């Protein structure tokens, strides 16, 4: 792994909130290589989302160094984010929402609509191009969110529990679709989840975080046969072993006295609107 240039590299990253009273992250170091699919797993409150925001450049670390393509990360063309809720602009059509992201990239009107249509085809929503987000189901909305992120052709796709709010069946279908898209496009994916099965199922590497403050507990290589959307690895003994191991670590964290519920409340969402008045 060391021979390829890292796409994302974090070195001893730390981040605090509430004027340093709450340590969200401490001494986080890992690399993400081009085309790699990694998952960040851990109990709620271990700073997974904060880590994504740091990589996206929405916030800056207090300590250490975050590098994306060798530079300090800035929200822009190299990165795209998929959120837990689709976060579509309700006053724009499905098509308009994808064009919104493309317009931010400076594409011409014609290119915008061409690429938006192509991406809608890729997620199977071409017939809904002129629908408004509230007319779609949750799964379809999330597909639009995914299409919007893929449309900008990012080198890194950041996904913040994208399937957590969906029903089990839709989730299963979308996981398969995500793996197919990834195998075709091979962008790097950093996938945040609290679902251990999902992390093992999707990713090549699982980074297990422990809370209070958020730090790396263990990094596990997932060596399951590919492509996984064709051969469900969940029946394999290797899958069961990995699952058991990760759950073992998490139970240990709980025994170590981390009161997980309490921690979940300790990290308020960082004020994202610099211009918004209270």
């Amino acid at each position: 792994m060391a021979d390829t240039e890292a796409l994302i590299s974090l070195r001893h990253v730390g981040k605090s909130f509430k004027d340093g009273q709450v340590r969200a992250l401490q001494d986080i170091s890992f690399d993400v290589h081009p085309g790699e699919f990694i998952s960040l797993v851990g109990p709620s409150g271990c700073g997974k989302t904060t880590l994504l925001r740091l990589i996206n450049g929405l916030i800056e670390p207090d300590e250490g160094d975050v590098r994306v393509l060798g530079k300090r990360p800035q929200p822009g063309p190299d990165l795209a984010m998929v959120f837990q809720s689709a976060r579509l602009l309700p006053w724009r059509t499905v098509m308009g929402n994808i064009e919104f992201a493309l317009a931010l990239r400076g594409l011409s009107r014609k290119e915008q609509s061409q690429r938006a249509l192509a991406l809608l085809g890729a997620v199977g929503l071409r017939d809904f191009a002129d629908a408004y987000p509230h007319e779609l189901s949750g799964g379809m909305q999330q597909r639009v969110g995914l299409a919007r992120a893929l449309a900008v052709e990012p080198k890194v796709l950041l996904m913040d529990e994208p399937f957590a709010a969906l029903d089990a069946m839709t989730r299963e279908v979308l996981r398969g679709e995500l793996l197919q898209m990834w195998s075709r496009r091979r962008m790097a994916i950093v996938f945040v989840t609290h679902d251990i099965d999902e992390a093992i199922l999707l990713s090549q590497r699982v980074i297990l975080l422990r809370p209070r403050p958020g730090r790396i507990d263990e990094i596990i290589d997932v060596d399951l046969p590919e492509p996984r959307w064709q051969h469900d690895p969940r029946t394999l003994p290797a899958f069961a072993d990995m699952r058991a191991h990760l759950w073992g670590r998490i139970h240990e964290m709980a025994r170590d006295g981390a009161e997980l519920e309490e921690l979940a409340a300790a990290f308020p969402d960082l004020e994202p609107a610099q211009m918004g008045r209270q």
Partner: protein
Amino acid sequence: MTEMATPPLSRAEPERHPAPPLTDASAAALAARARQRRLRESVTIIGVQLLIALLLLAGMYALNATAGNLTMPHPMAVLNQSIKMWSDGTMLRALGETLTVLSLGFLLAAATGIGLGILLGGFRFAGRIFDPFVNAMNSTPGAAFIPLIIVWFGLYTEAKVVVVWNAAMFPILINTAAGISNANKDLVEMARAFGATRANLFWKVMVPDALPSILSGLRIGAAVSTVGTVIAELTMAQSGLGGLLIAAGNRFQMDRYFAVVIVLMALGTLITALLRYAENRVSRWRLTLADGR
């Protein structure tokens, strides 16, 4: 809608007999029934509304018969006065004067209110500085400034426009600022994550998100403008519908007075309806969301 002609289903293999798909004919029948139900509903509503109007009219007759012309004019007298005032141009001229003051004041209030609201809502530093002043102005009744406005601007149209502007601007400003500063944080973060510049964030996310709020501000502002116009016409140089109103009232010409009140009622209703229509059109996505359609 049950299909009685089909033979009873065998219990062993129910999956072979799925529910019959909605054919075009049955869908049309459903739609027709829904249309009929809606029609019945609106006929009932309009019927009851007519009944209430008739009762009010009957009340006017009764009051006129028992208490005399001064307490309540005879409805026919009101009608006659209306016809007279419309045909000799009195009403039209007054309406013109009123609409001039009203629309100039309202447009000025809308332009300044939305502009300043966007500034104060968008730049929270400025917003925090001006907050107490805006609140103080907003909570002072518009009529309190009339003497000052008379001293500064005189008694005529321009002064009346200032009265209307002063009364209507603050509700518009406050609604706009609130709409912008309460813009959906998730959407703002989304746009930032996709690399939106400050200007893009502002014009493509925060302002559209605030549009429903801005429009409710405009609706309130329009109502306040109507009140402000009439108050200005009553208290400053008498003109327009307000002037007619007070002239008729002072002479106890209650039929004339009522003819003007009816025009004011119609005007206010029309303005509110127009703005509600605009509001529904612009925030259709929010409305359909609420309807669950």
